[in-house]
């Protein structure tokens, strides 16, 4: 399906990325980190710091886990990255945009580089699967034929091509999350931000979803994956950052069982 074409639609028309990013600023060198944050502070009230001096760099094509207990500030950190909220102090640059200087009227230019996946899916229940998936492409004002081809490809990729005409409310939890992922990747974003995407799913579905993210990452999409599920993190070797009481740092990975036995024996 990925290589399929529809009559009258050229390959350039199907992926007119320069047009996709119309209005977005140049990102400069490909070697620059896609996310660069330093000394970030975020307060919810004068005595409630959620993030304290958080610093983070995410290289292009990297897969980074952000973990921490509920309420640690994972969602807030991701929200700062897509400019759902603004930091109270610190420097933050995402996809070449300096978010401390970015005016509200230009937030759209940043978000066209991003794909967002949430724990609660954030689908429009009364829209069809295809309509939900097509939203980012409609925002990019692509033609109907291009949208149909791209949506068809993406739904097939996440295993939802058979239910394209069904309404989103008729899907199961796992299918809804697949649809949310399809919507997040349909416009081929540079950075995929996933906020507890497996939070509502059973362990097997969570692994499936994680596999999907890893596949996207192998194809060149940078992924920032926030989760509190250490079992899920333990299944991969990706860099993991932990948030604890607003402080962001590398996670000390638990030793495997065999290593623990060796230490105990010695």
């Amino acid at each position: 399906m990925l290589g399929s074409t529809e009559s009258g639609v050229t390959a350039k028309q199907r992926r007119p990325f320069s047009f996709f990013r119309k209005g977005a600023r140049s990102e400069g060198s490909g070697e620059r980190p896609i996310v660069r944050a330093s000394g970030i502070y975020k307060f919810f009230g004068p005595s409630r710091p959620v993030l304290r001096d958080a610093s983070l760099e995410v290289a292009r094509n990297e897969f980074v886990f952000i973990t921490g207990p509920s309420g640690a500030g994972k969602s807030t950190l991701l929200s700062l990255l897509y400019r759902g909220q603004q930091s109270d102090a610190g420097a933050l640059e995402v996809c070449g945009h300096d978010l401390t200087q970015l005016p509200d009227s230009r937030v759209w230019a940043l978000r066209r580089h991003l794909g967002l996946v949430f724990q609660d899916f954030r689908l429009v229940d009364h829209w069809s699967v295809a309509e939900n998936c097509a939203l980012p492409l409609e925002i990019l004002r692509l033609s109907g034929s291009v949208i149909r081809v791209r949506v068809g490809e993406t739904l097939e990729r996440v295993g939802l091509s058979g239910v394209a005409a069904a309404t989103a409310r008729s899907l199961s939890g796992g299918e809804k999350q697949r649809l949310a992922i399809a919507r997040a990747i349909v416009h081929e974003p540079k950075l995929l931000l996933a906020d507890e995407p497996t939070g509502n799913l059973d362990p097997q579905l969570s692994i499936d979803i994680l596999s999907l993210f890893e596949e996207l990452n192998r194809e060149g999409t940078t992924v920032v994956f926030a989760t509190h599920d250490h079992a899920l993190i333990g299944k991969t070797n990706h860099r993991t950052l932990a948030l604890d009481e607003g402080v962001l740092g590398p996670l000390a990975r638990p030793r495997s069982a065999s290593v623990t036995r060796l230490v105990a024996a010695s």
Partner: protein
Amino acid sequence: MRMAYLFRRLQRTLRAGRVSALASIVSLSAVMLALVVAVLALGNARLLPVTDVPERLVSLLLDPATTESELASIELFLEGSAAVSRFDVLEPERVAERIGTAGGLSVDARQRVAQLELPAVVEVSLRSGAETGPALTTLLKQVGRFPVVLDTVLAEPIQPDTGSRGVLLWIAGIFCLLLLGALVVTLGYSTQLAYARQTQEIALARLFGASERFVRLPFVVDAVVRAVLAAVFALALSYGLWSVSLGPGSARFMGERGWSFLSIEAVLGFIVMASVLGWIGAVVPLLFSRWALGGPRREGSAW
């Protein structure tokens, strides 16, 4: 913006609130119908009977080469006209006599006589009363067909707005303004309703990079389309109303002549006005809705 996309968004807006869209078009049509009737009243008030015009109204300035037989045919016409109470043909000597006398030719007519060196002037007195205004119009048209009549000069200008008619004009004007305000409020309310119904979709669109223009444009187009549709319905209804009760067919109720309907320019102007009102009615509430219902920083509030 691509029309296909706009059409899809409009379809979704309509699908989200079919009943309220219909209701808003009906209510807008009703308000616009009232507006059309008020405009008709305003326009036709100018033609309302003029009761207080002076009896001597007009002087016909004749060509110096007018022959006796031509003058006779004019006299014959004036005698046959129901609107004319009496007329008087002034020979050149009498014109000269009456210049400068009180109650004679008006200053304007005297100046015209002096300039043209006319041999004769016909002073025409119209019947005073309810039909004097329209009768004068008809008379001037008819007299204009005589090749020997060079000009007609009113002895006294007709006062366009006098007494109760002026009050009627004011009332109709204020009513029109109130109806315009009601239209904007109705359009604004229906736009805000449509916006509130799609809060989630809008917040989602913002999350995926929709600009403010992307968010607002379908609502503006929707409001303009509603307003124009309502204007067309209102014009069609008012034309029907006019045909049945106010137009020429209603002679037995309204005398010789009923109200005239709006000109084609006025109809087109009305439709343009409706589209402008639709634009205002959509843009104003959307400006206020942006932060009330989820701006760039508050998209999460929709969930």
